[in-house]
């Protein structure tokens, strides 16, 4: 005779519960905001990524102010010019440290032990950031922006995308620069950080282990 009352009742299944359980399992708060790290995380190389994020925060903040006052503002106002300068230099900082972070991770073979996705998302962030910066340089409304557009059209036209990514169309480039591309970069940066936290930092290269994602699922 079966005694159902002594058995734990299974939770009803739902997409919401499945998502909650997945997040609890894959990304507990202790992983998202850890207070301990392996002791080898004591190199300046680990700082490059964080500084790149700090640069990105400045890029977005200064960009929001520039967008708020409109594309003409920084040409006519001293304050606007200063905010534009903040935007320019934070973009430079963002790229410098993103490239340092990328090369640091390359020489650490940071894709090992199930971290290939993290590496690939990082490369995509780099590529899309280049397009985002490119549309920004075109949107400057000065001689540099004007010439870059005239010069760059040959490459986009040769690639067959000139009709729907028209670098001579200020409205299109400005819209892409202030909305779609930053949203995409921001989303991917968030995904990149989540992947880093889900897996934790990679272990140092062991002389007898290969620098390949052969044990892909070991840390997943």
């Amino acid at each position, binding site marked *: 005779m079966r005694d159902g009352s002594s058995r734990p009742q299974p939770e009803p299944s739902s997409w919401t519960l499945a998502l909650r359980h997945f997040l609890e399992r894959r990304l507990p708060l202790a992983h998202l905001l*850890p*207070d*301990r*790290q*392996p*002791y*080898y995380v*004591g190199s300046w190389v680990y*700082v490059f990524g*964080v*500084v790149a994020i*700090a640069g990105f925060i*400045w890029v977005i903040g200064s960009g929001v102010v520039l967008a708020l006052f409109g594309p003409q503002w920084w*040409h006519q106002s001293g304050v606007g*010019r200063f905010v*534009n*300068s*903040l*935007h320019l*230099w934070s973009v*430079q900082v963002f790229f410098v440290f993103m*490239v340092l972070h990328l090369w640091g991770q390359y*020489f*650490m*073979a940071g*894709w*090992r*032990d199930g*971290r290939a996705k993290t*590496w690939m998302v990082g*490369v995509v962030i780099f*590529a899309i950031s*280049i397009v985002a*910066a*490119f549309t920004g340089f075109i949107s400057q409304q*000065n*001689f*540099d922006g*004007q*010439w870059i*557009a005239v*010069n760059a*059209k040959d490459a986009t*036209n*040769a*690639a*067959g*995308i000139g009709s729907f990514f*028209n670098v*001579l*169309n200020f*409205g*299109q480039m*400005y819209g892409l620069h202030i909305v779609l591309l930053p949203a995409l970069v921001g989303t991917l940066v968030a995904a990149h950080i989540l992947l880093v936290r889900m897996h934790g930092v990679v*272990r*140092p290269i062991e002389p007898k282990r*290969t620098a*390949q*994602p052969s044990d892909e699922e070991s*840390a997943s």
Partner: protein
Amino acid sequence: MTAADPQDKYYAGIRMIRYDLVKELVLALVAVSVLVMGLSVVLSSPDDPAVTIQTWATKAPVDFVTTATSELSGQSGTAQYGPPYNNTADAAQAVGPIEPQTWAGVGIPIDPAQDFVLRPLGFAAVGNPTLTTALATYGAAGADQQQTWLTNYTTALADATVADNQVTVASGDYGPVPDLMTGLLGLARTGALDGLLLNSGNLYQTDFTRPLLFMGDGEYLSGLAADQHLTGDQWGMMNETGQYPGQTWLWLFSFWYQIPPFNTAANTDLLVIILMIALTALLALVPFIPILRDIPRWIPVYRLIWRRYYRDR
């Protein structure tokens, strides 16, 4: 973290230390704030004014008229460009069977003679009998006659002089072309041509394709760019006006434009685009490509980065 936590398993045997990620981010933010504000205060940012058609016609009237004549004769860069502006035969870049420029077709149709010269002159001709007559004469002439006038005028422009804001050439068989060009130059000098080329029929104008293509066909804009080291053969895509850093991250993209076979090819842009797409894909797929993924082991930069770890083992 639980005993079954995969990170616990991964870091088994590794000493863990206190590490404040939030504090690290805040300190990085403070450092970047100081750096960015300091650079902005000390160095500011470049803002060389854009060139308008009005500026071009005022500063370089002979180049303006020469370019406008080439638009009318169908000899300009835009007239000969191919897709996406027109269907000029054999103008599109291709690498073997890869012809994305041709595949995409004419998405932004441009008729330089009509769009850059004749249609704007139609507006200017209202109340201007000389221009009205010149346009009527030009339109009534056959294509061969038009080309004869335009060829003669183009040749004469090589020795043109400028006096009283007018471009003057030696006497010759030019038909109504000098009157057309005088009208267009006057229209450009007032700034009206900037507006006419921008007009799309909608209330707000944001598409600068026509005025920029027209200016790009002349030598004035590219001459200014060359003075600022901005042209393609000067690593221009990664430069900025003045001494400011531009898109320095495009150094590899710009590099290919400086060396053979790229800089001597007729399809340079497509070759560089294909190469850069391939290199970007390689970079993204490094974890799966033997040799590329093994280089970090062969060049032991990692021993410097993790020197404490290797020293303590």
